Every structure is written in C-alpha cells, then in structure tokens.
C-alpha cells in the first residue's frame, strides 16, 4: 500500500485477470452456445434452422412480457402476479380489434394487414397501460413493502380480471387467424421460415434494443437503473421514485399487452387462462435472469424459448420438464439468477 502516500499519482488499476473477465461475460455466451450445441445434437440443418427460429420467436415474445415484470420488481420490490391478467386482456382487446378490422386482415395487401395488426397492438397497449395504472392505484399501492400481501392481493386481482374477461367476452375461447400476409412460410431449399416468427423476432429485437437504449442512454433510464440499485438514495437526491415507478408499471403493463397480442397471434387461439399459463414461463425467465435485470431477462427468455423447442424435437417426453430443469440448474450455479442486480 505504498501508493497511498502519493495521492497525486494514483496507480493505474490493473485490469482483472482474463479468467475473471470471461467469467463475468459467461451468461451472455450461453445462448450462442445453446444454438451450437443444438446444431450438434439435432444434426439436421433444415430442422435446426426451423427450431432455432421458433425458439428465438418464442423467447422474444416471452421477453416482451417479462421485461415489465422484472423492472417493476427491481424498482419497487413488487412481485406482481396480476401481470398475467394484462397478458390476457391484451390478447382479448387485440383480438377484438382484429376481428372488427376483418376486411383489412384478409385483404391481399401487406400494408393493410400490418395496419390492422398495428392498430390491434396500439389499442391493446393503451388498454393494458390504463389498466396497469388502475391496478397500481387500487391494488398494489396499499401493500408496498409486504411481499406476502402483494402476492395474495395481486393473485386476487388476477382472479377478478380473469372473471371479468369471461364476463365481457364470454366463456369460450376465441380462435384468431393471422392476417393473410403473415400466414405460411418462405421456403429456401429445405429450410422453411415461417413469416410470423420472423416478425416476432424482429419486433422483440426492436423492443429489446429500444428498452436498452432508453435505460442506458436517457436520463430517465439512468434514474430507473439507479432506483433499481438503491431507491432510497435516488429519493434523497430529490427525484420522485414513485412517479418513476408508476411510469415503469404502466409501461410494463403495456408491454405485457403487446406480448399478449403477439402470443395470441402465435397460438392462434386465446383463452382467459392464457395469461396465467404464460405467466409461469415468464416467472421461470425472470428467475433465471435474476430479478430486476433486463439483460438477464433477455438471455433467460431466449434460453427458455430455445430449450423448449430443442427438447420438444429431441426428447418430447422431457419437453415439459425442461424449463424447470433449466431453472434448477441455473439456480444451483447462480442462486440469484444469471445477471442479478441491486437488492440482495
């Protein structure tokens, strides 16, 4: 510690050893590694291409739904089981809009088709965003800081929302057909590339990049990240973390609604229970990624999507347990998730 005697010339901080830097980067390499291992195991290029695209599409959609949940938890320590309700409501609102615009959906024009989908997505996001605001006001606000009550109350909110969906849209599941331009696949040699999956991957990637840009490059994002690390300190610096939180909650709900529309178009069938079913995947993703971490959530979502599709092809019997298995392995390796942030 001879350096301390000479503060004018601080010693250059030695970069950490290579092994340490690699270990810190490790979680980011899991997804490419999974793709390569998948190719080695499947051995059939066309099948691998189809499965990888399907896995990425599924992962992107789950990421869209999970990102809001993980940020809400990170910022305000609120675990929102009602998130599933936003997914269902988004899907139902989107479906209603698309059914109302039936003429645009079946028109042989890509632009009209896309216009119908965009209209559905915007309406769904507006409705679920508004619903999120109401949910935060009425249901979540009185129970800050009490995990047990949060889980119970938001679960209650989910039950009520599911019943209200039954009340408004009737008890039956609604079949939803994709717009004309998004049906079918492009075929290159033996590889079939389903059009809708490409759209899902593109949309998911855009949202991830936009979210990352907003979080890393804007002042608002800086405050949100600081709030995730230490909300009290941000408050002490004079920022109203509550307003930030409402913003994030509304944005997260709107993203859940968007995810709901995408998922509904992917499955081509929507039910009131779909929110809860998808929520289970969302939870697995959020746990794998580390609660509160957007990057972790992204990595986790792609892992879950790829894992589900690869095992579905390689060992269908194992497929349903594969995500649980993935979660167990990750938790044993890194008990707080792949890329944990902030609170311990």
């Amino acid at each position, binding site marked *: 510690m001879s350096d301390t005697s000479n503060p004018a010339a601080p010693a250059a901080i030695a970069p950490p050893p290579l092994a340490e830097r690699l270990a810190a980067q490790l979680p980011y390499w899991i997804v490419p590694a999974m793709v390569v291992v998948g190719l080695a195991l499947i051995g059939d290029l066309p099948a691998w291409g189809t499965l990888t695209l399907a896995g990425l599409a599924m992962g992107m959609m789950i990421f869209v739904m999970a990102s809001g949940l993980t940020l809400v938890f990170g910022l305000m320590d609120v675990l929102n089981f009602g998130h599933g309700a936003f997914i269902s409501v988004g899907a139902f609102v989107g479906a209603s809009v698309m059914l109302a615009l039936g003429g645009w959906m079946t028109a042989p024009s890509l632009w009209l088709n896309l216009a119908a989908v965009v209209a559905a997505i915007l309406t769904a996001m507006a409705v679920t965003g508004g619903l999120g605001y109401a949910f935060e006001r009425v249901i979540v606000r009185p129970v800050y800081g009490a995990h047990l009550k949060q889980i119970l109350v938001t679960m209650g909110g989910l039950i009520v929302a599911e019943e209200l969906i039954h009340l408004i849209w009737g008890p039956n599941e609604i079949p939803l057909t994709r717009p004309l331009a998004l049906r079918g696949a492009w075929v290159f040699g033996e590889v079939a590339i389903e059009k809708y999956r490409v759209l899902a991957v593109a949309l998911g990637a855009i949202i991830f990049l936009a979210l990352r840009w907003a979080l890393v490059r804007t002042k608002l994002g800086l405050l949100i990240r600081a709030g995730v690390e230490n909300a009290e300190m941000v408050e002490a610096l004079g920022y109203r973390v509550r307003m930030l939180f409402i913003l994030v909650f509304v944005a997260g709900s709107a993203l859940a609604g968007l995810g709901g529309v995408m998922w509904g178009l992917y499955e081509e069938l929507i039910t009131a229970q779909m929110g809860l079913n998808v929520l*289970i995947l969302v939870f697995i993703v959020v746990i794998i990624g580390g609660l509160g971490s957007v990057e972790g959530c992204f990595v986790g979502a792609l892992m879950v999507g790829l894992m589900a599709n690869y095992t579905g092809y390689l060992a269908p019997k194992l497929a349903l347990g594969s995500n*649980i298995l993935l979660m167990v392995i990750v938790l044993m390796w890194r008990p707080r998730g792949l890329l944990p942030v902030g609170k311990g």
Partner: protein
Amino acid sequence: MIGTLLSGDLPRSKVLSVVMVAILLGLALAPFLFPGTRALNTAATICVFIVLVASYDLLLGYTGIVSFAHTMFYGIGAYGVAIMLDRMPGSWAAIGLGVAAGLAVAVALALVIGLFSLRVQAIFFAMVTLAVASAFMILASQLSGLTGGEDGLTYRVPRVLTPAFKLFQDKLFGVRVDGRIVDYYLVFFAALALFLLMLRIVNSPFGRVLQAIRENPFRAEALGYRTVVYRTVANGLGAGMAALAGVLMALWQKYTGPDTTLSLGIMIDILLMVVIGGMGTLYGAAVGAVIFILAKNYLQGLMGAASEALAGLPLIPHLVHPDRWLLWLGILFILSVYFFPTGIVGRLRK
C-alpha cells in the same frame, strides 16, 4: 382435558367457540342430521378441506411463505392411494402402501424444492412452486399408463367402505348405516386427529420459531435459529399433511383425476379459504373451509335463482350468473387482505 386436546390453543372468543362446537357437532352427526348423498358429500369434502387448508395455513399463516404447490402434494397423496388401489382393488394393504409412498414422495419433493428455492430469497418460492406445480400437473396427465391421464382413475375400495356393506341390520335413528357412513366416519376421525396434531405442532416450541420467522426472519436468524432449516421443515410438514388430506379424498371419492386434485383452481380455492377464514390460526382454516364449501355448493344455486329473477335487466343478470361466483369471492378476497388481514377469526377474537 379440552385444554390438553387443543394444545392450550383455545378459541378465545365466545362466538368462535360456539361456531367451532357447531362445526364439530355438525360434522360428527352429519349422516344423521343431514341425510342424503349430496349433504354427506359436502360434509366429507369439508372434513378433507379443513385438513388441507390447515396444512396450508401452517405455511402461509404461521411461517409466512407463499406456496402454489400445495395441490401438488394433495394430488400426490391422492394418486398414491389411487394407483395402489387400481393395481390391487379393494385391499387394505394397497391403502397402506399408497399412504406410505404418497407421503414419502410428497415430503421428499417438498424438501428438495425448499432447499433450492428457500435458500436464496423466500420470494422465489412462490414463483418456483407455481412453475413446478404446473409442470407436475401436465406430467400427471401425460403419464396415462400410471395415472389414467386426463380421465383419472376409478377404483374399488375395501368392501367395508362401500354402500353394499351393512354395519347393522336395523336402521339407526332412521338411517341405514352402510359402508358409505363408515367411510365418512373414517374421513371425519382422521381429519379430526390430523387437525389436533397440527394444533399441537403450531403450539410447540417449533411452532413458535415458525411464527418468529414470519414476524422477522432476520431477528430469528440472529437469535440462532437456522431459518432455512425451519422453513424447509415446515414446508415438508405442510406437504405431508396435504398428502394425507389427499389420501382421505381418494378414499372418499373413489376417483382421482387431475381436475379434482391437481388443478390450479383448487389452489386458488385453498388460498381464498385461508385468507377469508383467517391466516395464522388453524381455527380460521376450519371456518374458511366450511364457509367456502357451503358457498360453493349452495350459493351457486342461489345465484342462479337471482340471475333468473333479474333476467330483464341489463348486465346485472350476467354479474350474478352462477358461473361468476368466483368473481365475487375474488373481490371478497382482495378486500379481506386489505381490511381484515386476520380474517373472520381475527375479527371474532378482537
């Protein structure tokens, strides 16, 4: 005497005491007070759910951990007996084997889940259990060779428990005492014993530690109690009790399927019963179970009548439609978490 039986945990409220005595007498004399298959079925369901809900309260109310896998353990118990009785129809040995296997699997699974998810953050537990339980439900319906798949298993119980068996030649108080009633009393006394056992557990020093962990895990750890160990053991105990409740249900219904034992709907029912009855007291579990099951079985009829009576009005008939009863219970649930976090029993004890 009563103090010893109840492990010193008396109802501590006149109204509650009357309610508890009424529930006990009502269930004990159900076959004679309310003859008829439907009433007896309701009474047996109440007995089983009192055990199931009380065992959930052990986790939620006493230890302060939220699990969504309780129906999984309930289902494991039920399927243990069901599978054994399916292989060896009508034998007592099958029941014994089924109970042992179901208990062992349930407790082992609970300990494993507890060890890897309670270790880090208790909040993980709610999510992990939800994921595991949903995977288990799909697994149960896929292993159709073992579990009968979606259709479930229908099996034969020992002859003493079937309606063909007559305990007495003559009628007793105007009721023919057949195997169905023997079966009911088996369920009733087993449920009573399990309830008293759980009362014993929560009032033991072990139970006090659980409550300390619920109130302040950090402080409990500082006092030298390994919170992870206590939480995991509580989880195992709750799972074992839930599995035994499943066994009773399997013996009563003579049918076990994924919808009646494993579904998330039942999990939500249990959650509603605990919260409405009162968290953190086993009497609350009993009161909640009785109210909820009576409501489920009889309120829907009432709502149907109301819906028809109001048929001309807009929207309202849909709101009181029998299928929408969960809507009202959900709202009641949210309100009770806010305004009566101690539930009905907490109110009565004030």
